[in-house]
C-alpha cells in the first residue's frame, strides 16, 4: 500500500491545480465582465456559485496531496492511477486545454464567422410562422404585447431600437411593417454580408440572440441599404445606422429593411448579445406609456 503513495499524491496535486485554475478562470471572467461573451445572465449566479465548491475541492485535494496520510479516510475508491501515463497525460491535457485557451487568447464575442455558420435570420427570430402569415390563432397575451409595443414605438422619432428589447422591437415593427414604412429608425449591430450581397450597397446589421450559452446563440438582423457611395465597410465592424424603414423581398418573403441615411462606426458595446427578456418588455411598455400619455396611432387596432 505504501508503495503507491507518491503516485497517488501527484495525481491529487495536478487535479487540485486544475480545479483551482477553473475557479480562478471563472472568477476572472466574472470580474472583468467577459462572462457575458459566453453565457446568458441567468447563468451568472450558477457560475459564481460554482467557484466555491471548485476552490473547496481544490484545497482539499491539495491538502491531501501535500500532507495526506495513507491511512484513515483514503478508501482507494477515488484513486485513478491505473491506466497508462499517456492516457493520463491526454486526460489532464483535455482539462488544461480550456484553461489555456481561456487565459492565453483574448476574449472575443461571436461574430460574422459564427453568423455565417449558424445562418442569419432576417427580421426578428421571436416571431413565429403564424404571426408572419398574419393568421393569429387567438388574441393572446403576447400578440397584445406586440401590438402595444408597436403603438408606443410608432410615436417615437426616430424609433430607437434599445438593446434590452432589440428582438421584440424588430418583431413588433415586422408585424406591422406596412404601418411603419417610411418611419425613421436608429439601431446598432455588427456588419454581416451573405455571399449574394453586393458589398458596396447592402449588408445585414446583425446581433446574436442568446438564450443560455453560445451554443444556442442565434444570429438575426435587418438588411441595410446604402444609398450614397459610402466608403467600404468591413465585415464584423460595429455600426450605428439611422435611416428610413422600407420593405424588401428576400428569400420569398417580405422583410423589413432600412435605407440608411447616416452610418457611424461605434465601438463594440459592452453587452454585444441580445437576451430574451419579457420583463424588460413590460417595463419598457410601462415607462413609454407613462411618458407618452397613452396616445397611439391606429396601427394596433388592425388586430
Amino acid at each position, binding site marked *: 500500500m505504501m508503495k503507491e503513495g507518491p503516485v497517488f499524491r501527484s495525481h491529487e496535486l495536478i487535479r487540485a491545480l486544475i480545479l483551482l485554475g477553473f475557479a480562478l478562470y471563472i472568477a476572472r471572467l466574472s470580474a472583468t465582465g467577459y462572462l457575458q461573451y459566453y453565457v446568458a445572465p441567468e447563468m451568472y449566479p450558477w457560475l459564481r456559485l460554482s467557484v466555491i465548491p471548485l476552490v473547496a475541492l481544490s484545497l482539499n485535494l491539495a491538502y491531501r496531496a501535500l500532507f495526506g496520510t495513507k491511512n484513515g479516510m483514503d478508501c482507494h475508491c477515488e484513486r485513478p492511477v491505473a491506466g497508462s501515463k499517456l492516457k493520463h497525460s491526454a*486526460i489532464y*491535457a483535455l482539462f488544461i486545454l480550456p484553461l489555456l485557451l481561456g487565459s492565453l487568447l483574448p*476574449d472575443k464575442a461571436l461574430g460574422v464567422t459564427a453568423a455565417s455558420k449558424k445562418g442569419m435570420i432576417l427580421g426578428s427570430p421571436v416571431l413565429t410562422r403564424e404571426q408572419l402569415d398574419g393568421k393569429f390563432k387567438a388574441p393572446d397575451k403576447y400578440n397584445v404585447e406586440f401590438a402595444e409595443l408597436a403603438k408606443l414605438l410608432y410615436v417615437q422619432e426616430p424609433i430607437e431600437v434599445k438593446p434590452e428589447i432589440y428582438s421584440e422591437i424588430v418583431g413588433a415593427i415586422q408585424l406591422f411593417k406596412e404601418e411603419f414604412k417610411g418611419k425613421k429608425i436608429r439601431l446598432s449591430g455588427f456588419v454581416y454580408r451573405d455571399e449574394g450581397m453586393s458589398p458596396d450597397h447592402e449588408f445585414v446589421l446583425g446581433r446574436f440572440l442568446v438564450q*443560455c450559452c453560445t451554443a444556442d446563440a442565434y444570429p438575426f438582423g435587418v438588411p441595410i441599404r446604402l444609398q450614397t457611395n459610402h466608403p467600404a465597410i468591413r465585415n464584423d465592424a460595429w455600426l450605428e445606422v439611422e435611416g428610413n424603414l422600407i420593405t424588401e423581398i428576400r428569400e420569398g418573403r417580405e422583410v423589413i429593411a432600412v435605407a440608411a441615411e447616416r452610418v457611424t462606426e461605434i465601438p463594440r458595446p459592452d453587452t454585444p448579445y441580445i437576451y430574451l427578456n419579457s420583463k424588460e418588455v413590460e417595463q419598457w411598455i410601462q415607462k413609454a406609456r407613462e411618458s407618452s400619455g397613452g396616445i397611439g396611432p391606429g396601427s394596433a387596432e388592425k388586430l
Partner: protein
Amino acid sequence: MNEPFPLRILPILAPAAFILACLTVLLPLPAGSINLSYLYTFRTSFLGILLEALPFVLLGSLLSSLVHLYVSEQLLKKWIPKNPAAGILTACILGLLFPVCECGMIPLIRRLIQKGMPVYIATVFILSGPIINPVVFGATYMAFRMYPEMVYARMGLAFFVAASIGVMIYITWKSDPLKTAPVSKAHSHSHHAYHEHDHHDHDDPHDHHHNHACHHHDHHPHSNHHEKKWTSIFVHTADEFFDMGKYLLLGCMLTAGIQSFVAKESLESIGSGPVSAYVFMMGFAFLLSLCSTSDAFVAQTFLHSFSSGSLLAFLVFGPMLDFKNTLMLLSVFKTKFVIYLAFLICTVVFTGAVAADAFFLSQ
C-alpha cells in the same frame, strides 16, 4: 505499473498540454486571418458550452457523492416501488423533484444503479428527467408561446417515450448494464473483509474505467467513519467531476467544432423531404448537444421551414440522446447497452413524433 515515480507523469504531462495548446494556436496561423476567426469562434463556442455545463456537472457530482454516502441500499430499496409499473411512473415524474439537466444526471444515475436501483427505472429517469421538469416546461413555453400545443406535446411525448422504453428495458434487459464487473452478490459479501486485497489483484490488468468503477461499489463500508464523512464528500465529488469531466470536455469540443465549422445550410439541405425532415432534426439535435432548457428556442427558429412533428422529434430526442451525453453514457454503461438504448430512443421518438403530428399537432 504503480512504481514510485510521481515525477514521471509531470514531465510528460506539462509538455503534452503545452504542445497541444501551441498546435491549437499556431496551426491555423499560416493560412491567414480567416482561420484565426474560426479559432476564435471555436474558442467562444467551446468555452460557452463548457461554462454553461460546468455548474451542473459539479452539482451532479455533489448529489452523486451525497447519495453515495447517505443513501444506503436498503433505504433506496424501500423508496423504489416494488411494482414495475408504479416504479416507471414514479421515475417519469422524478424530474419534477430533481430539475437537473442531463449532464448532472448521469453521475447520479450511475451511483443509484450501483446502490441497487433497477436499470429500467434508472433509464426512465435518464430519459424523462431532462424534459419533464418545471425549468424546461417554462423555457419551452417561452419559446413556443404562440404555439402552446407544442409544449404539451413535448411533455406528453417525453413521458410516453420514457415510460415505453422503461417497459421494454424491463422486459428485455436482465443483465447489469454498468461498465464494471457485475455488481454481483458475491462481490458485496466479500468486500468487507477483503477490500484491500481484492483491489490490488484487480488493479493491474484492467483499464482505468473498469478499475475506477470497481472501486465505487467496493467501499461502502467506509461510510462507517462518520467523522470523516465530510472529507469523503470532497473526495468523491472531485473524483466524479474528473471522471465525467473528460467526457463532457470531449463532447463540448466536438459540439463547438461542429457549430463553428459546419454551416447550417449544408445540414439543412439534407432534410427537405417529409421523412428526411425527421431524420435531419433528430440528427441535428444529436450533433448540437444543446441543454434541454435552451433547445426549444433553437427549435422555434425552424418553425418556418420544418413540420411540427419533426420539431417535436428534435425537442424530445435532443435531451434524451446527444453527442455530449452519449459520451457520458458510454463512460458509465456498456457499449452494447448504450447502442440498444439509442436504437430504442430513435425508433420510439420517431414513431411518437409522427403520431403526434398526425393526431395532435396539425389540426
